[in-house]
């Protein structure tokens, strides 16, 4: 039955996070960007909202509510509205937790989920991106080879979020036994694994300055059979990717809405040629276009998230949503800069930061999971 109505609980969560985003994230966004520094106290505050433990069943110490991709999409939009960079940092443990909840064996859940149920932010991450301009999930260059009872992982990963402090990485690799996404496997690799070299992204990124990225080099990293996520069953690679892609898309939606909500009052206040620029069709139509696309993006994300939630294959819906959201977010951020003109180009306003963040976010999958 088609409905666009959030539950009362979802409305409540939305309100809470909207306030948090406005009071905490938005405030910290610019200083963190300028300093390329992630404020630890903010991670702590975000953690207290229970973002991580909400997805963890009570039996493993979590809050046990049903893991809901739709609720997550609503949450991520709000956090992204505050600051996508800080939001991604706060939520990056979901890259580890959600796949574990979705695919982990009983033992894996018991071993790792409790890490995230204490009162202190605990970092873990997903290693997905690789050092190739033609990087494609169907064609990873990181391989897992069966060695004895376990596996040996070899390859290079880049742009691993929160990798500077993650205690564990979920490393995506090819098993080499099947085709395309069917061949996708995930391995739990502790930070101190032999053969794993972690280096910061020395040159940093254009946007998302407050999100620390690292590079991983896996030189025949030996892991036990128990490190293979899902054990003998492995994972549903499509579901994992869809979850990550929709996570980024929901953040982007929040960013796009932030741009719009900044451009509207600016255009109303800014007077040129004797009249507020918002009263000029060229500007007014740009703003209208933003509203059209913010709405459209949200429904595409919700539809894909609802498929993820009901367990049907959401690959097609996710591809549609991601393709659309990446393009429209960038267009909105670009037009946001244009509405502000010179003020869109200087760092006194948040717009140029959003422009950089939009372009950075929309070329990366896997900054958080839905």
């Amino acid at each position, binding site marked *: 039955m088609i409905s666009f109505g959030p539950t009362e609980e979802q409305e409540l969560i939305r309100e809470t996070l909207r306030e948090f985003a406005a009071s905490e994230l938005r405030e910290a966004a610019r200083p963190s960007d300028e300093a390329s520094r992630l404020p630890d106290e903010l991670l702590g505050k975000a953690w207290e909202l229970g973002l991580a433990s909400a997805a963890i069943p009570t039996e493993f110490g979590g809050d046990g509510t049903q893991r809901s991709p739709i609720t997550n999409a609503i949450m991520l939009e709000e956090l992204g509205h505050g600051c996508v960079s800080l939001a991604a940092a706060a939520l990056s443990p979901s890259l580890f937790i959600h796949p574990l909840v979705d695919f982990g064996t009983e033992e894996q859940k018991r071993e790792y989920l409790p890490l995230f149920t204490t009162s202190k932010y605990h970092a873990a991450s997903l290693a997905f991106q690789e050092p190739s301009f033609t990087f494609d999930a169907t064609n990873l260059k990181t391989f897992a080879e069966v060695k004895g009872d376990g596996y040996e992982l070899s390859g290079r990963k880049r742009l691993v979020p929160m990798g500077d402090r993650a205690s564990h990485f979920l490393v995506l690799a090819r098993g080499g036994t099947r085709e395309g996404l069917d061949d996708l496997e995930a391995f739990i690799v502790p930070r101190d694994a032999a053969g794993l070299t972690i280096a910061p992204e020395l040159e940093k990124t254009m946007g998302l300055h407050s999100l620390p990225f690292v590079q991983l080099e896996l030189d025949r990293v030996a892991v036990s059979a128990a490190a293979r996520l899902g054990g003998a069953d492995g994972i549903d690679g499509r579901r994992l990717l869809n979850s990550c892609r929709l996570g980024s898309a929901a953040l982007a939606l929040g960013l796009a809405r932030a741009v719009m909500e900044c451009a509207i009052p600016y255009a109303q206040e800014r007077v040129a040629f004797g009249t507020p620029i918002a009263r000029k069709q060229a500007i007014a139509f740009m703003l209208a276009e933003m509203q059209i696309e913010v709405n459209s993006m949200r429904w595409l994300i919700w539809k894909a998230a609802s498929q993820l939630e009901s367990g049907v294959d959401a*690959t097609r819906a996710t591809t549609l949503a991601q393709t659309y959201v990446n393009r429209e977010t960038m267009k909105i951020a670009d037009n946001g800069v244009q509405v502000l003109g010179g003020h869109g180009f200087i760092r006194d306003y948040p717009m140029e930061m959003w422009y950089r963040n939009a372009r950075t976010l929309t070329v990366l999958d896997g900054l958080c999971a839905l």
Partner: protein
Amino acid sequence: MIDFELTELDQEILAEVRRQALICRKYARDLDENEAEFVPKELPEAKDFKNPFSLMSKHTEHDTPLSIMAMLVAAGASWGDYSVRMREDSGGLGNAALRASGTPEQIERWKDKRLAMAITEPSCGSDSKAIQTTAVLDGDEWIINGEKIFVTTGCRADGVVVWATLDKSAGRAGIKSFIIMKGAPGFEVTHKEKKLGIRADDTAAMVFKDCRIARDHLLGLNENIPKQGAGGFRAVMKTFNNTRPFVAAIGLGMAQAALDFTRDALAREGVEVDWDGGKHSRSAVQQELIEIEAEIEAGMLDALHASWLSGNGAPNNLEASIAKAKGGEVARTATSRCLELLGGLGITRDHLAEKWFRDARITDIYEGTGQIQRLIIAREILGYSSSELS
């Protein structure tokens, strides 16, 4: 609860719509070429046609509400052929206006008539303030004088709802809606337009020359001209809130038809989207198929959202215009992109793809162009009046 799944009943209704649509499609080419009226009830297959909405009697609160189903049914019907939809239901925009603004007696009196809606005049488009058609009360009769163009289904309709002004100096507040039935003295349909598309659908030009109608043919029976504000005009405009997402859905049905045809045609020659792959594993044509599908999906969701709001009695002026703006744009661009994908063979009249391209183009023009919709959206989000943003 946020949900996008169709229930079994929803699917059953839409399956019936599609069954009929496929039958009607067989006649589409011929009717287009001959610019002929299209009455599905007279098709040989029509005796088996069920009214899809009759299945709604089985409807429970777990099924998709009628407001939303109406969009899906509209898109499903125009997926077959644009004209099917127009012929199936009992009337056009005029009936919607009657339902929105008529008194209970008026609604009862004309509910079974097919009513077109006559707004546009040769020198005005969406600018209702500029309406030149006048209504003057003479005893117990109104005398109507004026000229109307682009009256959809104006030729075959039983009557027309006509916008006319009681007092030009009063602006919008002076505009009233009158029901004028065919045969009224001085009412003449002068011209049937030849068009780019929707050719099996009549578009009339009409003249009212000292046309006399009874006093009770004023919709709503309110003869006052309020001193301030737009008077009953807002209520009249509400008619369009309901039709805007509907018109979008019709356009999107055609866009979906074009995409489905294109996808099938290319698949038969081995070109298919691999949904697993990223941009580096896609061909240019696959990428284009994905983007067109995303556009249509976005437009359809906007239409469903606007109708979901109205079904809940929530205001949807903003969302109705979003649906129409997006739907109108998608209808024109998606059909055009499909023709580009199909190449030379797509522009032959061997296939209906070129017809859908022509038919769909009206979506962004009628019932308020995309530009008008964007003005409405911008006014809503900026809190501007129509004089502050024009």
